[in-house]
């Protein structure tokens, strides 16, 4: 099976935020939650870079390790998913996540958190693939239809890559060789404990 990863080529990202919008629309993500976001570092200064970031579907994911009810699971494609039926909204995954992926809808007073929501790599949840229940809780399941995450699929500059880790890494490496530069695969060291030479 493939080992699915995300890779954002910061030298190509033009901060158009289309990935953010596509994600919100595809999954009908609730108000106030953004599964994907674009962050610009050193905005307005020479050498600024924008990186599109969501859940990186880490190897040995910290969220899964700290979850007190073990609501996380990793699919055969190495996508990190969770069950909203089991989630108790404690917030631990959110303290542990290096990428700020888990978010909570506020459902009541005293900061009581609802069920955690995060990027599913367009792979839905534990419910039957493509079912209404799955869509309502987690959004579309594109992976089950043989499609890759929409954010990466529609990226106009092909900055955001999704797919098997080895394949997207080789695409990125080829780019770096051809153009002669690359600021590296952001988050890879933290998420996958590996980096792509730039």
């Amino acid at each position, binding site marked *: 099976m493939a080992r699915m990863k995300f890779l954002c080529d*910061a*030298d190509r990202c033009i901060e158009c*935020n289309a990935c953010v919008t596509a994600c919100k629309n595809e999954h009908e993500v609730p108000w106030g939650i953004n599964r994907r976001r674009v962050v610009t570092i050193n905005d307005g200064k020479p050498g600024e870079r924008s990186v599109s970031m969501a859940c990186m579907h880490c190897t040995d994911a910290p969220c899964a390790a700290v979850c007190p009810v073990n609501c996380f699971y990793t699919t055969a494609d190495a996508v990190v998913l969770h069950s909203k039926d089991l989630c*108790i909204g404690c917030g631990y995954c959110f303290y542990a996540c*290096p990428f700020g992926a888990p978010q909570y809808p506020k459902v009541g007073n005293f900061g009581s958190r609802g069920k955690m929501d995060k990027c599913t790599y367009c792979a839905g949840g534990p419910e039957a693939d493509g079912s209404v229940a799955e869509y309502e809780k987690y959004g579309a399941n594109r992976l089950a239809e043989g499609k890759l995450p929409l954010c990466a699929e529609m990226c106009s500059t092909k900055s955001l890559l999704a797919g098997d880790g080895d394949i997207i890494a080789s695409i990125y490496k080829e780019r770096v060789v051809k153009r002669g530069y690359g*600021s590296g695969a952001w988050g890879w060291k933290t998420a996958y404990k590996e980096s792509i030479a730039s």
Partner: protein
Amino acid sequence: MTGILARARFIIGALLLLFVVAIVAPVSAQQPTRVNPTESSVKEDQLLQQMQIINGRGSLPDAKSYNLEQPAGRDWRAFQDVTLPWIGAIAILGMLALLVVFYLIRGMVKIENGRSGRLVVRFNTFERFTHWMTATCFITLAISGLNIAFGKSLLLPLLGAEAFSGWSQWAKYAHNYLSFPFTIGVVVILLIWVANNIPNQIDIEWLKRGGGIAGHDHPPAEKFNGGQKGIYWIVVIGGTTSAITGYLLMFPFYGTGIAGMQTAQMIHGVVAMLFVAAMLAHIYIGTIGMEGAFEAMSEGTVDENWAKQHHSLWLDEVKNKAPSGATPRATPAE
């Protein structure tokens, strides 16, 4: 002749031009590859070395989303998954083992001269209400908190995912909402008993003589002895610390960021584990550890001989306050 010369001049000129072009061309061809747009660009490694959290700017209204990376989450994870369970297991199981061993060696501390049948009022209704409100909340908070730390290893395999999640959800609600009466209880405890809990010379003497726990010596003590004062300050300081750190977690991003919440959770966890261990000792000595102790908090009264044995100075004080000649009478527990 002139034709040949002209031709030769043309060829030489052409060759020279070619030569010049040949020299210049590679230079100009190399020009684009020397431009490296990443030269001045931000580098992830460098940023991670400089700071704990990489953040920038975004276009979403939620400013928290501008944090790109915070690998410190991994350190917190190690604490959560390894350090805290160990601290908890050692503190709580260690205390339990200690109490069992102590009970086997020392047994229940008896009222040496037997019961006199005369009762002395020790805690009034309000004191007892405060104690039991705080105690009930504490036990619920402790169980629901320990469930977060150990539940998935101990209970989850027994209950199954669904039932364990359902229970944990209610435990979380209980933990969040019972924190309020617990905090009120701690504040009231602080206020009603602080005057009796200032450490003094008598406590040092009491501690030096083993507090009557280790041997059969009964050093004089006021309303609260050195050990009880210790428990009092553990409750006040431990309760305040866990309340403050707990509320920081209950109200995310009010006054803290992610790093702050990680720290708050770590303090909350460690203090709570030690707190539970200390309270086990408190529960022990208040129940099976000492004859005649539990009724102080349940009925509000103690036997005079118990008071004489454990709190001689306090008994003198109570007797002096009472009408001359009269022994403190049995007072109904309201």
